């Protein structure tokens, strides 16, 4: 009977109660949504590169190698000589190897020289292939394939010419050797989106007339002549490697790390990605902190709502007291009300979360390359909801305690 009365009491204050529950619902949806997003981002990040067993580069830090070889961030400290590359590639435990040459740029985007095998071997998100939205993979020396972001940001179409700048953030252009865009890749949510891909020989070709980072004076070698030349690179930046059998990953890694004639290193992408996520994970903590603050705000709002409502409900409390309700019962009623509103808010919030996920999932995937799986609530999510309920009860101890004091002081008559 008390429950029924508490419910009708709440119904009589319907609008305030509904708005309070909505505020809690939004905050619960936010905190759960941030968690889902965080997990989705983490998984998508870990899936930036898949099916590649090892990444080889000049000896440096594991995260640094990952940053420049996969994310194309930061400077390339050193190169791998073509000889060493050939030696490693010839090893029997190497199933496939794709060389990568970095160092030049086009506007804000990095240019990467590689072999056509890159398009077969580079996979992301648990084995997805790179696909062309438009055009075809380059076949001529001066052809380029660009990532989706490059195309979108610079408004490029198939057939457009692009000029590669020497180095990064440089004003020196390889103007005499322009490239033509032959293919545009689909959006992947990986750094490939922000990359201009050309043939490994093309990197060599545009540097034929260059020495020590500057153009040699005199007439540049015409493209026709370049096409005739033997354009074997002297060095590459990094290489993606697949092994014959997964059991050989560590042996090969060790062999590369201990390669005698040159200081090389090999990293396992998954391990390095995890290490890198550990570094940028501070952002996720900040995001989580913000959503926790939103929850606290909503709960404080509820406490304020109840506190403000107390003076209007003094009569109600005095009547209950006269009928034999102890101050504890009145306090309990208020706490029960708080818990009820918070619970309604939590349930609404979970509904909002899934509605939001259904709407936002495709957009997040396309726009940011973050795939958020729509899955059930994890134990951690349930714990979060439970924590919200406990916090609601704790916060509402303030109005409940005040109600306790009021009902003691008022007695049977409302004293002002």
């Amino acid at each position: 009977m008390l429950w029924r009365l508490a419910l009708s009491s709440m119904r009589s204050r319907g609008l305030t109660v509904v708005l309070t529950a909505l505020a809690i619902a939004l905050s619960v949806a936010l905190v759960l949504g941030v968690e889902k997003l965080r997990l989705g981002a983490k998984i998508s990040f870990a899936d930036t590169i898949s099916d590649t067993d090892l990444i080889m580069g000049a000896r440096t830090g594991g995260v640094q190698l990952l940053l420049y070889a996969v994310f194309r961030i930061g400077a390339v400290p050193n190169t791998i000589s073509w000889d060493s590359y050939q030696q490693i590639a010839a090893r029997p435990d190497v199933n496939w190897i794709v060389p990568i040459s970095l160092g030049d740029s086009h506007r804000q985007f990095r240019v990467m020289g590689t072999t056509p095998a890159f398009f077969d071997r580079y996979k992301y998100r648990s084995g997805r292939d790179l696909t062309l939205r438009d055009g075809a993979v380059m076949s001529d020396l001066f052809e380029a394939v660009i990532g989706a972001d490059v195309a979108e940001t610079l408004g490029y179409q198939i057939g457009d010419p692009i000029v590669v700048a020497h180095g990064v953030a440089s004003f020196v252009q390889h103007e005499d050797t322009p490239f033509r865009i032959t293919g545009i890749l689909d959006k992947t949510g990986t750094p490939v989106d922000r990359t201009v891909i050309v043939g490994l020989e093309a990197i060599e070709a545009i540097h034929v007339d260059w020495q020590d980072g500057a153009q040699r004076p005199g007439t540049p070698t015409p493209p026709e002549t370049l096409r005739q030349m033997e354009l074997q690179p002297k060095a590459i930046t990094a290489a993606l490697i697949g092994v014959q059998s997964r059991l050989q990953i560590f042996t090969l890694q060790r062999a590369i790390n201990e390669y005698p004639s040159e200081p090389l290193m090999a990293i396992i992408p998954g391990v390095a990605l995890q290490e890198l996520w550990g570094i940028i994970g501070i952002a996720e903590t900040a995001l989580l902190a913000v959503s926790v603050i939103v929850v606290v705000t909503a709960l404080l709002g509820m406490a304020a709502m109840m506190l403000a409502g107390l003076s209007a409900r003094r009569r109600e409390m005095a009547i209950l007291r006269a009928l034999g309700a102890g101050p504890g019962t009145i306090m309990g009623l208020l706490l029960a009300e708080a818990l009820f509103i918070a619970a309604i808010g939590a349930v609404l919030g979970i509904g909002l979360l899934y509605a939001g996920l259904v709407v936002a999932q495709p957009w997040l995937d396309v726009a940011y390359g973050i795939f958020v799986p729509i899955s059930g609530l994890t134990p951690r999510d349930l714990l979060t909801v439970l924590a919200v309920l406990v916090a609601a009860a704790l916060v509402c101890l303030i109005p409940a305690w005040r109600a306790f004091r009021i009902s003691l002081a008022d007695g049977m008559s409302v004293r002002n």
Partner: protein
Amino acid sequence: MAPPVTIRDLRFDWPGGRFGLDVPAFDLPSGAKMMLTGASGAGKSTLLALICGIVQPQAGRVDVAGQPMSGLPPRARDRLRADQIGIIFQQFNLLPYATALDNICLPLRFSPRRRAQVSNPRDDALSLTQALGLPDDLVLRAKSTDLSVGQQQRVAVARALLGAPPLIVADEPTSALDVDAQAEFLDLLFAQVTQMGASLLMVSHDPALAPRFDIVQPLAKIAMPRRGAA
């Protein structure tokens, strides 16, 4: 049978010392209908709060139905009040969001003793409201806020009487009613209190009502108010 109310050597101060009350001796005989008269500020509400065990005296004792209300822990006082006393306020007696029936049956929730006196709460409540001249329809369905003040006060009487508590305490229950309604209300109240064999302690400042009561006591003769320096 123990007298419904006995007070001895009582001394009480509200927290903050603004107002206090001394009651050397007060007795309400069993089955009596007593009227306490006094102007506002004479300590009527304070005396009723003491009898009902809502506040605790600093000295002396209050017995209700032979039990020491003033000596019990808070929870037991709440229980004793729920068991022994039906209370009628001046006005705004009812929870506005509940029906009259829910209001009437509410005391049973706090007093198993009164619950045991009632075979079927709904039927007993309805026979009470019928005797008080309230249509069933109104009692069962209407929200308390839809009732007139006179109807609300009669619902309050039904609530105070359900489960037959031996003592009915009424704090100026007629002050919100017009003269005709006052007479009718008192007729109904007296009839029901007599039928239940309960005692009635009513506070009023209206001397016109005095002839109806067995005992009329000016509050000033029982209780000495003390005003603090603050």
